[in-house]
């Protein structure tokens, strides 16, 4: 079975500072990896995804993530955050070649950007 661990439930950071949100996964088979953002009372929006190829993936809003197979990690980074980045961030996996492409999510990390 696959699982996703987001160790930090909340990450406070000052505006214009860099941030890293951690994600580790467990799977005995290859997976696709995703980061989603959820603003209050909204659905989920895809930030970026890793399917194959380059391990450094760039997404929307200046975010990027690096796939590290040996450490089974897919940490999300941004060099300079804005107040508007305040939201809940979810890491997710889906099975490579899976029949349904259903997503398995972590418990989320609240990014709280302070002025």
């Amino acid at each position: 079975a696959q699982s996703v661990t987001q160790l930090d439930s909340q990450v406070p950071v000052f505006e214009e500072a860099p941030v890293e949100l951690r994600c580790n996964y467990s799977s005995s088979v290859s997976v696709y990896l995703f980061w989603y953002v959820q603003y209050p009372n909204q659905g989920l929006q895809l930030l970026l995804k890793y399917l194959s190829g380059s391990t450094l993936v760039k997404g929307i809003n200046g975010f990027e993530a690096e796939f590290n197979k040996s450490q089974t990690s897919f940490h999300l980074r941004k060099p300079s955050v804005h107040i508007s980045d305040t939201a809940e961030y979810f890491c997710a996996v889906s099975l490579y070649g899976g029949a349904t492409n259903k997503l398995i999510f972590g418990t989320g990390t609240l990014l709280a950007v302070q002025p």
Partner: protein
Amino acid sequence: GAGVSQSPRYKVAKRGQDVALRCDPISGHVSLFWYQQALGQGPEFLTYFQNEAQLDKSGLPSDRFFAERPEGSVSTLKIQRTQQEDSAVYLCASSLAGSEAFFGQGTRLTVV
């Protein structure tokens, strides 16, 4: 439509009442998913449709939960005899086969 539309946005149900939650996927999207998101948690998979066929319902928590997509477009998630533990946000997502899933804003169900 432009995105995935869910209705109602908010639903308050008395314990024991039946509820029906609606999802209008993006036009032409073959795949449709339902997820349940409890307070402070990540979304959890409930069920998956490919067109009108329900190919995976392994995440439905009990036989009180039922989903359908009779014409391969609009889907309804029905919960019978609601209980307090059913209180959550129910998210619908749709996608073209094998591509990015687009999520609706969700329906927040509160069982009192």
